[in-house]
């Protein structure tokens, strides 16, 4: 049974009126007046065009916007909504804008969306990120249609990324999740996704929403929950992903620590699922790729500049690294950092390093947030290495390098598994 303490009396009254839905689209917001109208417009156009016979509703879960976000959700695009045209849907579409209480952050917003979906007995749920500037009706359709047509439980997006984008995902989370869980999920941290009502109800019941680990990386937790829970998972191509954050971004150090800690915690919790998995499978791709305009080229940072601090960082972390890593790995890392002829952190060594950090986290060899913190400079070195090597590569070459990195992580898994159940070894 969903935890309905999140659902206020006002919201419950509204949900009573909405009744059962086939598709619920949720949009968590906090001061998104600049983008929310376009997102609402895209969602309603999607309802009319792709789901004209479905019972649909849009729910905006707001963290306390001080701008016009909630009013815009209710009032934008009403002329189009009311016009009887050949393309208007058969059914009433509901727009709900509701504040949520408790801890700020997208986690509670998503949880409220899931609780509402459970009460509405929604067959499918799509969650969108209003920080994304290029959401189209086809995005909603791509994420929702597999839920209806193929009875998939979780639909993750696939983005077309440039070399300079998304290193936290491409260099760390993607290969890590792939190697441990045994599924080739491209975007384990995506803030847009589709899921079945069954999955939403399952997640809504979990006790772990309140934990810091889930709070800090709810989308990663959802991906892991889908994989570890043996829910059917699929992916769909959405094209480019143009972020226009409404609020200043968190400092990278904080973000990295939170996400990595959350990732390690989740992997640790799901060990029973992945320890015995030896093969890695493709997550099915569904639907036709969403057509997208070519994005503005992002000028990659200078990877060589990033690597300038690699050697010093390793020296600074020596004491901690000697605890977290095996002797061989530490030596290889030190050597790579100090090698002037070939600066950088090779993919294989990076994979080994991450694997040993993960094991160290599992064995709780030190404060866990310190473990994540210690990984940051090495992550920077890895990102710098990739940028240095591929700043001018073709997309195909860059993709091949990323695939190679994933394979390195897969090869490390055996050692991770061996050390997982043994006492901590130096």
């Amino acid at each position, binding site marked *: 049974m969903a935890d309905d303490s999140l659902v206020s009396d006002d919201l419950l009254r509204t949900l009573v009126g909405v*009744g059962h839905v086939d598709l619920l689209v949720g949009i968590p917001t906090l001061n998104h007046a600049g983008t929310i109208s376009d997102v609402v417009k895209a969602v309603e156009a999607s309802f009319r065009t792709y789901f*004209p016979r479905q019972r649909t509703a849009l729910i905006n879960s707001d963290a306390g916007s001080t701008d016009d976000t909630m009013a815009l959700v209710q009032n934008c695009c009403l002329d189009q909504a009311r016009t009887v045209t050949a393309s208007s849907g058969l*059914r009433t579409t*509901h727009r709900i804008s509701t504040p949520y209480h408790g801890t700020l952050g997208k986690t509670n917003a998503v949880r409220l969306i899931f609780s509402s979906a459970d009460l509405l007995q929604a067959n499918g749920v799509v969650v969108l990120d209003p920080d994304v500037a290029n959401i189209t009706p086809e995005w909603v359709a791509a994420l929702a249609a597999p839920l209806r047509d193929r009875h998939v439980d979780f639909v993750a997006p696939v983005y077309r990324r440039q070399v300079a984008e998304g290193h936290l995902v491409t260099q760390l989370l993607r290969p890590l999740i792939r190697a441990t869980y045994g599924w080739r999920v491209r975007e384990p941290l995506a803030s847009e996704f589709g899921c079945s009502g069954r999955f939403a109800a399952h997640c809504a019941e979990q006790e772990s929403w309140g934990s810091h680990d889930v709070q800090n990386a709810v989308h990663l937790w959802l991906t892991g929950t889908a994989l570890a829970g043996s829910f059917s998972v699929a992916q769909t191509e959405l094209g480019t992903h143009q972020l226009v954050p409404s609020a200043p971004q968190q400092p990278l150090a904080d973000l990295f620590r939170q996400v990595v800690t959350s990732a390690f915690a989740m992997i640790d919790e799901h060990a029973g699922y992945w320890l015995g998995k030896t093969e890695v499978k493709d997550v099915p791709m569904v639907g036709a790729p969403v057509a997208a305009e070519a994005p503005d080229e992002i000028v990659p940072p200078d990877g060589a500049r990033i690597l300038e601090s690699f050697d010093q960082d390793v020296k600074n972390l020596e004491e901690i690294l000697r605890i977290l890593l095996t002797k061989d790995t530490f030596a290889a890392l030190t050597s790579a950092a100090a090698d002037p002829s070939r600066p950088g952190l090779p993919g294989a060594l990076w994979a080994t390093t991450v694997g040993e950090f993960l094991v160290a986290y599992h064995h709780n060899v030190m404060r866990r947030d310190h473990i994540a913190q210690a990984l940051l400079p090495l992550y920077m070195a890895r990102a710098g290495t990739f940028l240095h090597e591929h700043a001018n590569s073709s997309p195909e070459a860059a993709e091949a390098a990323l695939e190679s990195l994933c394979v390195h992580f897969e090869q490390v898994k055996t050692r991770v598994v061996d050390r997982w159940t043994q006492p901590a070894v130096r």
Partner: protein
Amino acid sequence: MTDAASNPFWYRDAVFYQLHVKTFCDSDGDGVGDFRGLTGKLDYLQGLGVDCLWLLPTFPSPFRDDGYDIADYYSIHPGYGTLDDFKEFLAQAHARGLKVITELVTNHTSDKHPWFQEARSSVDNPRRDWYVWSDTDEKYRDVRIIFLDTEPSNWAWDPVSKAYYWHRFFSHQPDLNYDNPAVREEMWNVMKFWLDLGVDGFRVDAVPYLIEREGTSCENLPETHDVLKFLRRRLDEHYTGKVLLAEANQWPEDVRPYFGDGDEFHMAFHFPLMPRMFMALRLEDRKPLVEIIERTPDIPDTCQWGIFLRNHDELTLEMVTAEERDYMYEEYARDPVARLNLGIRRRLAPLLDGDRRRIELLNGLLMSMPGSPILYYGDEIGMGDNIYLGDRNGVRTPMQWSGGWNAGFSTADPERLTFAVISNPLYGYQALNVAAQERLAHSLLNWTKRLIQVRKTTRVFSQGRIKFLNPTNHRVLAYIRTLGKEQVLVVNNLSSTVQAVELALQSLAGLVPIEMFGNSLFPRIGELPYLLTLGPYEFYWFRLRRA
């Protein structure tokens, strides 16, 4: 309520009943209904509570379109009786306070009509110009074909005349040429003939198509309205209290011109409303209904919409979008045999799977929405249909009066009946008939009588304005009908499940709702949203009173 007979605008408050003489009651055992049989059933119709009977065509006809192909405008088909039989029927109907309107098929005649026989005989014949001729079939190229399933063109080649003639309907129904003043005069003569006999008006068939002009859709043209205004002027010059009811299957805004400034039709069917009632029910969503009513323009105070659930034709899906049509076909006519032209040829009860609750709900909507309701014969007992009969005959089967021989319709041998009576286990006459339902206090028949009776306790439903409440719960259709100081709250649950609804009635705070069928008091309306719960497909009518 004021007696309709003394009210020239009686049609605004009337409940109409459409019937087919051919299949209502046969008095002489030839298998065909007739006027004497119908006269014998007038007590039943009076008891039902209806005010006006609308008869399908009873003119002499070769019956290739069930009488809409007229071969003589001034007589009665011998199968239905004589002109004297008709006069007697009319007198008896009027004696019971029932008005009678008949069909007036203005757009076309049968090709067997003497006018057409003369017209085709020679280009010099005086009646040549009574029809629309052409040497080629190239004119009016883009005009849509109405009977799509049977007609490939709006032109037909006449081998006698060696020319093409225009027909918007079947090829054996040539269109009259209303550009010819003689045609207009003759149609007025037809009207006058029947009005002088005492009919109370006409349901005028196929009015949008009277005039053709190149480069147009040949529908709803200004010249067509000129013709209709001409006929109306003549009517008003000679008679009062008569009604002209237009059959114009168009969007509401396109039907509006047919009312003119109160100088054209008194009434017009609201075709687009009808499929949307079925759609809203299946969707469990009020959206289609609210949208079409809100799109319906105001009409002159002396005019009225004719609203209906079913009639003698297919449930037309012309005035819906392609998406809506596909939805209706998939939900209501999975069997392709049920589909005809752009519609569904099924009766009310089979469309609703014989579900008494849904039948009641749709009838409740019919009786509470703006307009004069028109019941189709047999639907008051939930008659079934036979989609395997050709054309639209499946919804025109004999009335089921009893469980006896031929359902009490005729003493003829069953093989002699025009159409066989319905005898399947679901809707068969053996159990589903008037006699049985008259014996059961809570039958659909008695419920329908009660419904009409309650409706007629107020003019709010027929003449009042409508305001939708639009609660969050889209499964509930709620509206207030207002006429002067009188207000009625109508709440309908379109859903198959129990529903709760909160209605914003604060502007009516202080009023007490009184449910109109049982006169039960409900809590006074206050400042908070008014909470109601409704069972599946339930509806309530509340009279709102200050107390």
